């Protein structure tokens, strides 16, 4: 579904991604782990079109999308739930959802009902300003807004960041449900333990390079977690 090959993204002279390649198969949850500053968020921002890659290609269902603007990529069915959520604080929850569906031409009323069914708390707070929601609720709203654009592939950048364990449970339950309903997900996550429970495939990124990829069982979890947080063992 999504093929990324030799992606190089730079901030000025600093190479944040030094040739990253990965794949997301249709209907799967693929997870990207790695220490802070490894380039995970840069990867997501590049796929979503916010950052322009210096080299390398990104193909979504065979079509190159590296040069497209974010709104064009969303139109093709790739939606990003950004790090720190990025909701519209001074607009109501309902308006946030409407904004998410802005570029859709078809009537999306029934999608709205489905979203509210999946996130009952958002229905309660529908007419409340998004800025007044709790962290967990804002995260839900960010996911819901992304879903309003009816994505085929959902990019999630550290959804559990700064949330209470109870809320993180709820987030991952939602991710599992979305997966069951057929949405492919590319998940960047700090919480390796929770992520590995839902992912079918994962990549490990350190200093802008993929250093390991495989299925959850292929590497002992404690070894994986050590490298995910502390980086590969240096000689």
């Amino acid at each position, binding site marked *: 579904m999504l093929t990324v090959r030799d992606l190089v993204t730079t901030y000025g002279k600093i190479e944040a991604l030094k040739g990253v390649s990965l794949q997301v198969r249709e209907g799967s949850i693929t997870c990207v782990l790695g220490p802070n500053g490894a380039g995970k968020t840069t990867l997501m921002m590049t796929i*979503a079109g*916010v950052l322009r890659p210096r080299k390398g290609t990104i193909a979504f269902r065979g079509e190159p999308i590296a040069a497209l*603007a*974010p*709104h*064009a990529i*969303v*139109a093709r069915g790739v*939606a*990003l739930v*950004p790090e720190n959520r*990025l*909701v*519209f*604080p*001074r*607009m109501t929850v309902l*308006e946030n959802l*409407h*904004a*998410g569906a*802005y*570029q*859709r031409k078809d009537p999306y009323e029934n999608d709205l009902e489905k979203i509210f069914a999946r996130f009952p708390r958002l229905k309660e707070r529908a007419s409340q300003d998004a800025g007044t929601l709790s962290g967990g609720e804002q995260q839900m709203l960010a996911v819901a*807004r*992304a879903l309003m*654009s009816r994505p085929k592939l959902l990019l999630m950048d550290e959804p559990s960041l700064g949330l209470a364990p109870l809320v993180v449970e709820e987030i991952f339950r939602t991710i599992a449900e979305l997966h069951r309903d057929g949405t492919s997900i590319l998940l960047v996550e700090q919480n390796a333990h929770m992520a590995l429970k839902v992912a079918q495939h994962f990549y490990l990124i350190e200093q802008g390079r993929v250093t390991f990829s495989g299925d959850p069982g292929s590497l002992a979890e404690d070894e994986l977690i050590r490298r995910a947080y502390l980086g590969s063992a240096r000689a």
Partner: protein
Amino acid sequence: MIDFLQNTLDGLALGASYALLALGFTLIFGVLRRANLAYGPAIMFGCYCATWAYLKTGLGLLALALIAMVGSMLAGVYVERLCFAPHRKGAAAAAMVASFALWMQFEELATLALPRHLYAFPALYEGGPLSLGRLGLRIESLVMLVAAILVGTALWGILYRSRFGTAVRAVIDSPAAAELSGINVSAVSLRVFALASAIGGLTGFLIVSGNEQVTPMLGMWSTLKGMLAMMLGGLGSLPGAIAGGVALGLIEAHSQWYLGPQLRDFIAYLLLFILLAFRPPWMNTRSAY
């Protein structure tokens, strides 16, 4: 007492024109986070197009109004494409100085096309003022007030009752989130810019036909008054723009009556300076360009 009421009435009418200007400024500021110094000159350009058309063909008021709006809109889009679209991230100073450079262009273009320092413009209404008891209200002022109310409600309707409005407010609230929600931020900004310029063109037309004359100073005047009113009402808020415009109109009308024209401007600037220095709550504290 009558003077007070009469001044208040005049102040409201003047405030209506300031509110319209401030609305245009705030719309542009909302989506771009930049002040457009060429906003007034774009309006002046539109009014000069209308004046030129009037001199050459003697068209009716309605046609002239349309020409003024379209002229201002075209000038506005030209400014947006050259000064604001290329400076998406950062470079706020560059965008502002670039808009100033275009201000100079518009001003020279105007004096080239119509070199005389002052041109007559057909009056909006030939008859005398409406008399409400012992107070007089010029018809042009009434039209300006009605226009301000109509434009205000129309804007409110667009922003709060239409899909495009939701997208505009999304871009105003957070451009980054809007882009990720599938909203083409630069297209929305361009359309908002055109809308704000059209409002400006209408305002310019009403001012020019109210005064029955057009001068190149209209550019500087509307930029200054528009920004002043926008800041008074709290940067970036549309209701604030209307409130700021009306407040400025009232302040100027009264201080002109009691203190004279020079002190009128002085009071307006002093008030803004004090407000900026002591930051009342409605002045949102977001650092803004």
